[in-house]
C-alpha cells in the first residue's frame, strides 16, 4: 500500500568545521491522504529541520545523510532541484510562523498570487486572478477584491497569515506543512487559523503536517502525533491516546508541566534540566539525565521506537512495560 508521504529512517546532519552534528536521527512516519499529523516537542527537538528535509530545503551545512522521503511515489531526496521545484510550493505547500517568509513586501497580494499560479499552472493571467480570488474567499478574507491590490504591510499579522494559507492553496496541494503557523498570533486569531486549517483538511483532499510546540493546538487539530526529543521521535500514536495516556516519560512530563490540569496555585510538575544541544547529546537514551525512572540500561543503549499494545502506538523507552503502566 502506498502512502501520500513516507519518511523512512531520515537522518540529517550539519557539516560544521569541527565535525558533523546529527540533528535528525532515524525519524520515520507515514501520512495518508486527509491525515493530520502533529509533530510536537520543545525548541531544538528537530521539528523544523524535519519539515525542511521533506521539501529538500535544508539550509547550507545541513544535508540528508541517510533515509528516504517518498511522496506520491517519488523519492524526493533524490530529485534534482529542478524537479523538486515542481513539487515544492505546488504539490506540497508550506506555511511558516512568520508570514513574511512567504510574502514579498514589495509586491501586491495579487501579483504574488498570480505569479504563484502561473509558475505551476498553464492558465491565462485572468484565470490566475480568478483562482487567487477564489482562494482568498476560501480563507474568509473580507472584501477579497480590495485585498488583492494591497501590499503585505497594509494587512494585520492575522490577515497576512490568512493570505499565506490562501497562497498555499493556490495549487491545490496534496500536502501542507505548517511550521508553527499560529505561534506569533493572538489567541483569538490563532483559533481562526486553526479552524481554517481543520476545515480545509476536512473538506479538501489534503494531508497536513502541523509542527508546533503547543500540545493544546495539536490535540485540537490533529489525529496523529509524533513527539520529538533531541532529533528522534520518542512517542507516536493517535493524538487522543498520546495526550490522554502518554507513555514516554518525556511526553508525560510535558503534559504534566502544563498549568491547566492542576489545582490553581499548586506547584507545577517540572522536568529537571533542559533539552541537550546537538554537541552534547547524552549517550543511550538522550532523555536519561532528565528522566525520573531511568536505569543503567538507559545510559548505555539507545532505545528503539517499538510498538506497544494499541495498534499504532510506538514508544522509545527501555522502561516501558517495566515501570510505566
Amino acid at each position, binding site marked *: 500500500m502506498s502512502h501520500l508521504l513516507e519518511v523512512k529512517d531520515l537522518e540529517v546532519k550539519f557539516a560544521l568545521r569541527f565535525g558533523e552534528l546529527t540533528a535528525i536521527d532515524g525519524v520515520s512516519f507515514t501520512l495518508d491522504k486527509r491525515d493530520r499529523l502533529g509533530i510536537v516537542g*520543545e*525548541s531544538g527537538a528537530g521539528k523544523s529541520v524535519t519539515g525542511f528535509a521533506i521539501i529538500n530545503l535544508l539550509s547550507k551545512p545541513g544535508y540528508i545523510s541517510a533515509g528516504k522521503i517518498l511522496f506520491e511515489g517519488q523519492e524526493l531526496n533524490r530529485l534534482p532541484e529542478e524537479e523538486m521545484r515542481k513539487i515544492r510550493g505546488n504539490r506540497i505547500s508550506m506555511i511558516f510562523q512568520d508570514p513574511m517568509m512567504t510574502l514579498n513586501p514589495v509586491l501586491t497580494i495579487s501579483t504574488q498570487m498570480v505569479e504563484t499560479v502561473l509558475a505551476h499552472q498553464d492558465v491565462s493571467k485572468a484565470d490566475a486572478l480568478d483562482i487567487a480570488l477564489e482562494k482568498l474567499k476560501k480563507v474568509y478574507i*473580507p472584501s477579497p477584491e480590495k485585498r488583492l491590490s494591497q501590499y503585505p504591510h497594509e494587512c*494585520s499579522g*492575522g*490577515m497576512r497569515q490568512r493570505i499565506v494559507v490562501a497562497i498555499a492553496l493556490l495549487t491545490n496541494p496534496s500536502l501542507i506543512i505548517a511550521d508553527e503557523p499560529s505561534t506569533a498570533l*493572538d*489567541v*483569538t486569531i*490563532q*483559533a*481562526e487559523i*486553526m*479552524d481554517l486549517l*481543520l476545515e480545509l483538511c476536512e473538506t479538501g483532499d489534503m494531508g497536513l503536517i502541523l509542527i508546533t*510546540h*503547543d*500540545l*493544546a*493546538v495539536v*490535540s*485540537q*487539530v490533529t489525529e496523529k502525533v509524533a513527539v520529538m526529543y533531541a532529533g528522534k521521535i520518542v512517542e507516536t500514536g493517535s493524538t*487522543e491516546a498520546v*495526550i*490522554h495516556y502518554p507513555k514516554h516519560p518525556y511526553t508525560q*512530563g*510535558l*503534559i504534566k*508541566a*502544563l*498549568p*491547566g*490540569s*492542576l489545582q*490553581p*496555585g499548586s*506547584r*507545577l*510538575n*517540572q*522536568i*529537571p534540566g*533542559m*533539552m541537550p544541544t546537538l554537541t552534547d547529546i547524552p549517550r543511550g537514551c538522550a532523555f536519561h539525565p532528565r528522566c525520573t525512572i531511568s536505569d543503567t540500561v538507559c545510559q548505555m543503549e539507545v532505545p528503539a521506537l517499538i510498538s506497544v499494545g494499541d495498534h499504532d502506538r510506538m514508544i522509545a523507552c527501555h522502561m516501558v512495560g517495566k515501570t510505566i503502566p
Partner: protein
Amino acid sequence: MQNRNGLLKIKNLVKHFDISGGLLDQLAIEKGRIVRRRTTVKAVNDVSLSIMPRETLGVVGESGCGKSTLARAVLGLYPPNSGEIYYQNKRIDNLTPHKMLPYRKKMQMIFQDPYASLNPRMTVKKTLEEPVFFHNKSITATQVKEKVAEVMQQVGVDPQWADRYPHEFSGGQRQRISIARALTVDPEFIVADEPVSALDVSIQAQILNLLMEAQEKRGLTYMLITHDLSIVQHISTSVAVMYLGKICELAPTKELFESPRHPYTQALLSAVPEIGRKKTEHVKLKGEVPTPINLPSGCVFHGRCLYVNDRCIDEPPRLIRLDSGTQVACHGVEDGRL
C-alpha cells in the same frame, strides 16, 4: 475598588505616545490650508485598579492592548499623561527621582527577554551585586557577596557560575538570573512582563514554580502580565482583562474563568485551546482590533461586539461592580441585556 489596604493603586491612568515625528512629518494639507497634525498612540486609557498585598494580579489581553505600557508606567519608567499611582497610600507618580529611589528598590521588574535586560558585558556576579550596592551604600563587600550567593542558590543558579556572562547560559537560566537580580534588593512588589513567554513548557514550569516559591517565602505581591490564560488561571488571585488600553473586566480569577461577563472576555476564553479537547466552537468576533491611534467612540470594543447597540456606540461604559465581585465595563451587562 479603591481599597484603603491596596499595596498598589492606580487611578485613571492615561499614557499616550506622541509619534508625530518631526515638524515636517506633521504637516498636511487640508482643504487647501496647511495644518499641523499630531499622531498619538493611546496605549493606556483611564485605567484604575488596585493590588492587595501578597496578591497576584494577572493582566491579560492581546498584543498591543497596553499591558507593557501599563507595567512601565506603574514603575515610573514612563511618565503618565494623567492619573495617579499610589504605593502604600503614598502618591508616587509625581516624585522627583531622588524621592522615588526607595520605591525603585521596593518595586522591581522582570522582563520577557532576559537577554535584552541583562548587560552582556557584565558577569552574573556583577549583575547581581550592582543593585545591592546601589540601594544600600553602607553595605560591606562581604555582606553583598553573601547576599548574592544566597539569592543565586534560591533561584537555582549555581553560585560557582557567578563569573560567567549571560550568553553562556540557556534562556531558562538567564530568566533565573534576572529573577535573582530583582530579588537581591528584597523588593515587595514585582511586575513580571511575560516572564515565561519565550521559554519551553518544561522550563516554564521551573520558572513559574520559582516565582510562586519566592512569593510564598518573601510575601511578595505580583503584577503578572501574560497572554497565556492558563498561566494566569494557575497563579493569579485576580485578573484584569485589557482591550485597547482599557480594562474591560477585572475579577477574582475563579469568577473570571467560571463566568466571564464581558463579551470580549468571553470571546478570549473561548478561543484558548485546551489540551485533550477537540476543537470546539469559539466565539467569532467581527473584524479586527482597531489601532490605538483612532480609538472607537463609546465602548472601545463596539465594532467587534456581537451585542452592540446605539448606547455602546455613543457612550463609553463605566467599570461597574457586580455582586459577584466582578467589575465589568459593558452597557449590555449594566442594562441587564447580558
